[in-house]
C-alpha cells in the first residue's frame, strides 16, 4: 500500500543526496518526494510516498532515522492528516476550445495562471485522485505538458507538534 512519510531534515548541502542514496542502495521505490523550506531556516521538511509493504515501510522509516541530518521521521499513513498535490498543466486552448477548458477548470476549482492565443496554463491543488480526475478530463483537449509537486502532507490541527531539536 502507499505509505506517506514525513521527515524533518537539516537544511544542509548534500542531505538530499544522502537520502536518495539510501533509497537507491536499499532498493526502496519512491513514488514521490517533495522537499521544502520550513518555518525555520535550519530545517527542511520532506514528504515522501512509498508504495510498499508495512515491513518495508518500517525499514524506510528506520533507515531514514539513522541519517544524522534527519531530525524526525513519522509514518503518517494511518494518522489524521491533510494531503495535497499541486499541478501545473499547459493545455491547447484556442478561441474555439477555450470555453470548454475553462468550464472544466471551474468545476475543479482550478485557476488559469497564464495565457496565450493558443494555450493556457492552469493550476490545480487538491487530493491526488482529484487532480488525477482533472487531468483525465483535460486529456482529450490536448495536454502539452504537466508538472506536479507530488504529495505533501501535514498532521491535522490539534495533533501535538513534534519539537524540532528534540526528536
Amino acid at each position: 500500500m502507499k505509505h506517506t512519510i514525513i521527515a524533518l531534515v537539516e537544511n544542509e548541502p548534500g542531505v538530499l543526496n544522502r537520502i536518495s542514496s539510501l533509497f537507491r542502495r536499499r532498493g526502496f521505490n519512491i513514488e514521490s518526494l517533495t522537499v521544502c523550506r520550513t518555518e525555520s531556516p535550519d530545517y527542511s521538511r520532506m514528504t515522501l510516498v512509498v508504495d510498499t509493504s508495512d515491513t518495508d515501510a518500517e525499514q524506510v522509516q528506520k533507515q531514514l532515522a539513522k541519517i544524522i541530518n534527519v531530525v524526525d521521521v513519522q509514518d503518517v499513513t494511518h494518522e489524521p492528516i491533510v494531503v495535497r498535490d499541486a499541478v501545473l498543466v499547459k493545455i491547447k486552448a484556442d478561441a474555439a476550445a477555450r470555453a470548454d477548458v475553462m468550464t472544466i477548470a471551474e468545476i475543479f476549482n482550478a485557476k488559469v495562471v497564464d495565457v496565450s492565443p493558443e494555450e493556457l496554463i492552469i493550476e490545480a491543488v487538491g487530493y491526488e485522485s482529484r487532480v488525477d480526475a482533472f487531468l483525465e478530463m483535460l486529456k482529450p483537449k490536448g495536454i502539452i505538458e504537466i508538472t506536479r509537486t507530488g504529495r505533501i502532507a501535514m498532521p491535522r490541527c490539534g495533533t501535538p507538534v513534534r519539537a524540532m531539536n528534540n526528536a
Partner: protein
Amino acid sequence: MAYEQSKSTSTASASADPALPPNAKKPAPVRPARVKRRMKAAQALMEVLVREGTTHFFGHPGGATLPMYDALYDFPQIKHYLVRHEQIGVHAASGYARVTGRPGVCTGTSGPGATNLVTGLTDAIMDSTPIVTITGQVASNWIGKDGFQEADITGMTIPVTKHNWLVQNEHNVASTVHEAFKLAMHGRQGPVLVDIPRDVFQREVEFDAEDLVSKHSYRAPSKPTVQALAAAAEAISNAKRPILYVGGGAISSNASKELFEFATKLGAPVAMTLMGKGAFPETHELAVGMLGMHGTACANYTMHNSDLIIALGARFDDRVTLKLDTFAPYAKVVHVEVDPAEVNKNRTADFPLHGDLNVVLQELTPLVRRPDTEAWWKQVSEWRQKHPLVYHQGDGAILPQFAIDTLYKMTKHRNPVVTTDVGQHQMWTAQFFKFDQPRKFITSGGLGTMGYGMPAAMGAQCGAPNDLVMCISGDGSFMQCVQTLMTASENNLPIKVFVMNNNHLGMVRQWQELFYQERYKSVHMPNQDLAKIAEAFGCVGMQARTPDEMERVFEKALAIENKPCVVDVFCDQEENCYPMWPSGTAIDAMIIDDPRYAKKLRMKN
C-alpha cells in the same frame, strides 16, 4: 508510529552534556581563565586527536595532506605508521579498534589516497567497527572543477560511513573531528570520514579545547520499556528449546560479563556467529559452536529446532540463516539490538528489545527464571556427540585444520589475538581456534575482505603490544596486502603470520569442484615463495613442509620477539571445508562430513 532517535541537534549555545536539558547553559567551569590559542586548523586537528586519545595513526601522505603532516611533525605523542597502501591503513585502524574497543584512526590524501580507503570503510560499516578517517581534499576553490587528484570522497562514501563531512570552514575542523569520534562510537559503532581541503588545513583558527561542541548531541540509546522486558522474560522463562544466538554486537557492547550471567542463569545452549566468537567462552559446556554456512552441525540443528531464539547483537545475516523462509521455523524471536533498523529487517521479532546489549541484559537477567531444558539438552548433546568437527591428518601433506588446531593447542595458554584473511583458512580457524575472551578473534565477517588479516594484525599489535598476535592467512589473501610486512618490520611489530598455503584460492576452488563440475579456472597459484617475500620485507621467513617438522617450525616462529615472521605452511591442495551448508538452501542440504574422506581411505588401503 514514531521511532525514537537518540540523536538531537544542539544549537551552538546548548550544552552537549546528556545529563542536562537540551537548552540549559553549561555551568561555568571551575578552572583558570581559558586561553584561546591561535594556530592553523591542521594543528587544531592534532590537538583534537590527542584529546580523543589517539596514539596510533595509520596513513599515507600526499599533496593535500601535506599541511596536516607538517602539523603532525610537532606531535610525537601520535605515532604515525606509514602504510604502503591506504587500504592497509584503514584495516589496521580496524584491527586496533577491535582489540582495544576504541576508534582506530587513519588517513589518506585526496583522490587516489581517499579512494583506496573505500574497501576498508565498507568492511568497517559491515562489521560495525569504529574508525575515524581523515582525508585531504583539493583546495576549496578547486572543488567541483576536476582538478588534479580531486575525488568526491564524501559522495562516494555516503553508503559506507555512518556519516561524513566536507569541512569548508576552518573554524569547524576541530569540532567536526570531535563529533566524528563521538559518532563512531555512538549506538551501533562504525566508520566516519572527515574530508578537509588543503587550504582549510592551513588557515588560522583560535583553538580552545574546552570550546569543543559537536553539532549533534549523542545521547545513550534508549532502554526497552518495563512491559517489553517483562514479556520477553516471560517467554524466555517458559521456553522449552531456547538458544542464545550471539553476534558481534555482544563484543561491541562489552557485554561479555552480563552475557555470562544471563547464559549461565538460563543454562541454555549458546551459539555464536563468526563475529561473536569469544563473547561467551567457547570452551564452556553451554557453547555449541559457531553458526551458519561453515558452523557446527550441532549449532545449526539447535537453532533450527529451537522454540525461542534469543538474538543478542546479531542480525540474521544470510551466512547464518541461509534461506530465510525455512530458517528456524518453530521459533519465536527475542531480539536485543542497539540499531532499531536491524529489528524486523530479516526476521520478524516477537519480542524486540531496543538498547545497548549490556544495559538490556542487566535489566533482563533478574527477571528471567531458569527454563526447564533437560529434554532439550539431551537432544543437543546427542547432536554434539554425533557431529564433532574432525579432520584426518595422515603422513601426506599438512592439513590446514591440523596446522590450525596445533597452533591453538600450542598458544591457548598465552591467550593470543588471532586475525584471519578470507577463505577456507578463515572458516577452519573459526572452527578450531576457541576463544574464551572477547576482542581476541578479529576477522572480516560482513564484507569478507581478502587482505584484511595482516593489516588487522598490525593494528591489533599496536593496540595490544604485549599480546601474542597471529594472523592465519591463505596464499591468495596474503598477497592482497602483502606490503603490510614492510610497515610491520620497520616498526618491529612481532606479528606472526601463518599462511595455509594450498597453492590455490582454496574456497573458490572448493566451489568450482562442488558446484561447477571441477572446471577449475583461475584458482591455481603454483609458484609463490612466501618465505623469500617475507625476507625481502625485512621479516623472518620460514617454511613448514611436513606434518613432522611443523610443530618445531611453529615453535621457532612463536619465539621471535622483535620482528614479524611469516611461516609458509605447505598444505594439502584439495582439502575442503566442512560442514558446508550451501547458500539459499534449507538445513537438510547441509553437508556435514567430507564425502571424499571415505573414498580417500578406501584408496589408501
